[in-house]
């Protein structure tokens, strides 16, 4: 299979508009949600997000929020882990919990015929999780197995190294999964505290799509969510990015090296964000025709795939990229990346490239709204970005409004080849480390 790189969920877009009717719903109890009603298929997708995520881990407790999220489905109320799983599966419901650096996510899908029972089950998991000692220990064992595997995984090693270099002791400086030593020492009390601190109503975002009306959704949300604590831990401060230009190499056996590279980026709320998005798309976004894919893969055969993305997160923004290459090709590939970065910084892009990127971004956008699950997920993400519910109608106009002058200005502002930091994990030949 030919690699398709989807590094980050950067908003992409056709001459088509996203014809999507978003309703803003407020429950009788005051909980706000967005809804796309569609009664074609008798099921509903519900997405909840709690802002903060693993960046809310308390000092000395790194990994607690991740462990908590992974243990939420391991029993609630009168049901132990197996009882909860049996009840969920007997309803053919899907309930998933995840922890990211900026949010805890809860994804649920339920058949219409089982909606009330399924939501009752989810309510228990959110408000009365058991965190039984044996369940905590079992899940901890699974997290630890993953952490040990990461120590032997060059991609994970590179990611850890890059994070630590860029952010040091700040939340983004380490993996939200924690360390082997740290997770080993976590207790059930730490898990309980993480649950109370990270899953409160003051950081909650809600979206639903599918077979449910606005009135039904309002009643459902009150039952589901009004028992959550009103407030939780304070949000972490913005992170300071330490760019550390240069090349660092960490030895690891194998035929190839993993290379991560990047420097500072741009926030989603910056007026230049769409110009930067178009630049990124042309430089190394998810297309085969991006400059880096053409120069590094198609013309020179140095890699199977290379991509870049705007990692615009809550606490910091970076412009990052990655590739894997045989050890004897890494040096050449790094040189090509530097050259392309510099070329775009000084010359910008051609009118043809900009036109093509616009057609792609505007064309791809409506294609994302294709199903209840994806729609609920996009809607909750839009709320977290602070967008209004008519955004899908205006978004492509913002992309199309970017001019060649904008592109040149933003390329010069953001692309800094001299600031690029390369993290190489492998046994590369001819790569000179600068530290």
């Amino acid at each position, binding site marked *: 299979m030919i690699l398709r790189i989807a590094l980050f969920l950067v908003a992409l877009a056709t001459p088509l508009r996203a014809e999507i009717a978003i309703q803003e719903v407020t429950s009788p109890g005051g909980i706000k949600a967005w809804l796309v009603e569609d009664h074609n298929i008798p099921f509903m997708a519900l997405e909840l997000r709690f802002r903060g995520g693993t960046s809310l881990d308390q000092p000395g407790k790194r990994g607690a929020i991740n462990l908590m999220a992974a243990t939420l489905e391991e029993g609630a109320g009168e049901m132990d882990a197996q009882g909860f799983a*049996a009840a969920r599966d007997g309803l053919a419901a899907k309930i998933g919990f995840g922890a990211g650096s900026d949010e805890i996510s809860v994804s649920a899908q339920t058949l219409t015929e089982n909606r009330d029972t399924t939501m009752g089950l989810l309510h228990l998991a959110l408000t009365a999780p058991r965190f039984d000692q044996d369940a905590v220990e079992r899940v901890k064992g699974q997290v630890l197995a993953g952490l040990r595997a990461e120590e032997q995984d060059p991609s994970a090693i590179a990611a850890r190294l890059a994070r630590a270099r860029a952010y040091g002791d700040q939340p983004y400086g380490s993996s939200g999964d924690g360390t082997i030593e740290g997770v080993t020492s976590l207790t059930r009390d730490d898990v309980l505290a993480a649950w109370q601190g990270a899953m409160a109503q003051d950081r909650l975002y809600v979206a639903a799509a599918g077979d449910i009306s606005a009135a039904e959704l309002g009643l459902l949300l009150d039952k589901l969510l009004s028992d959550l604590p009103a407030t939780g831990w304070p949000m972490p401060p913005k992170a300071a990015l330490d760019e550390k230009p240069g090349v660092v190499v960490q030895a690891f056996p194998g035929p190839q090296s993993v290379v991560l590279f990047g420097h500072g980026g741009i926030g989603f709320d910056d007026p230049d964000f769409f110009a930067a998005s178009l630049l990124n798309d042309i430089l190394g976004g998810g297309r085969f025709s991006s400059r880096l894919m053409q120069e590094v893969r198609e013309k020179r055969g140095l890699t199977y795939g290379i991509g870049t993305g705007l990692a615009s997160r809550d606490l910091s923004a970076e412009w990052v990229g990655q590739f894997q290459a045989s050890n004897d090709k890494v040096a050449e590939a790094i040189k090509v990346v530097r050259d392309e970065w510099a070329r775009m910084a000084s010359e910008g892009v051609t009118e043809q490239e900009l036109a093509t990127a616009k057609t792609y971004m505007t064309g791809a956008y409506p294609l994302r709204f294709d199903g209840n699950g994806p729609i609920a997920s996009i809607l909750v993400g839009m709320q977290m970005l602070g967008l209004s519910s008519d955004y899908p109608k205006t978004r492509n106009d913002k992309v199309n409004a970017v001019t060649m002058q904008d592109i040149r200005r933003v390329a010069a502002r953001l692309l800094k080849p001299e600031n690029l930091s390369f993290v190489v994990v492998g046994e590369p030949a001819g790569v000179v480390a600068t530290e």
Partner: protein
Amino acid sequence: MRPSLVALALGLACAGPARAAEEVSTFTLKNGLELVVIEDHRAPVVTQMVWYRIGAADEAPGHSGIAHFFEHLMFQGTDDLAPGEFSATVEAQGGNDNAFTSWDYTAYFQRVAADRLDLMMQMEADRMRDLTLSEQDVATERQVIVEERGQRTDSDPGALLREQMGAAQYLNHPYGRPVIGWLHEITALSRDDALAFYRANYAPNNAIVVVAGDVTPDAALKLAETHYGPLEPSASITPRARPSEPPHLSERRIVLQDERVSEPYVVRSYLATERNPGDQRKAAALTLLAELLGGNPTTSVFARELQFNRGVATWSAAFYDGTSVDPATFGVYVMPVPDVALADAEAALDAVIDGFLKDGVDPEELARIKTQVRASTIYGRDNAEGLANMYGQALAVGLTVKDVQDWPDILQSVTEEEIMAAATEVFDKRRAVTGWLQTPAPVKEAKE
């Protein structure tokens, strides 16, 4: 039968269209090309998939990897398109495209706004017969494949173990070859090899086109007839007859040691029956068996016994996919907790399998699995691409649309007795390969 005025007007021989719960229509063009249309009008999006009945198991000896290599080359130029222009055109329309190769098929797909289907079909039809390849394009793409193998196989001890186990599982059948190919054979593949492979296998009578999304069957048929209809069928397409397996008389064991391994595990594959046209009950029983034993990470037999009761495993699983032309495999897996040795983990796994063969099926767990199977036909309608994939894969391995549509009902009707009979038959170690993935034993001598 629904009238197909367009087809009749063009003088086509049309089979069908057959109709199903998920709005599926099928047609066969005069040149042998099959067309499947799955309607989903909720969003103005369409996916086209072109499936060729050619895969790694159809490669000539010594040419392992050519089916996959050729998949990459299909993105080079044609008499009408420059190299790379295919994907660039899809992308310029705001769409995405890609391709994948397996032992039994090679498939290409594009996802675009529904009004771009015409262009997508035009381009796929163009490269079905009119590909052009330069020596330089072939040489560079071969380098990309070497990098792909380095990234996906040689950098991953688990992938290396799977490759070794596959080779040991099949004594004679070409499923024992890795899809990506053996490195020494990949590097020897030439432009002439690629062109010969193309001419022999890429033709309308070896292709299935699946269109899913916001399109009507009549409109899709009309477009297909316009673009694919004029293509000449190939006379060299014959039914797939591959070397078959002799009786398996002896258990095989593989130990792969790699310093990059952190979590050792045991995995075993057993030769197992596949789905066959009009004959899917045994495969359905094996599908449910895999779910019962190791599908659910909390309530399956393996999870309960190995993870919860005995506490010897961090993870466990069972897996089976019978959608293949020839016999498939049934897999079991256990990753022990840190202080349990692989031999003990394997012994525990065997004890649990023996216990299951004695105790039989837990009826409540089976009922929950069947409930989920029923629900999956509802959830599945939310994903037109998933449906396209399901139909395309099944048709590419020789199943029919009816087989696909019968499958959920067959799963519902499989009895406990059938599951136990399937288990008794499949769990024969003489037809199995057991693999251990572990770190090398510490070396006693000091290094020079």
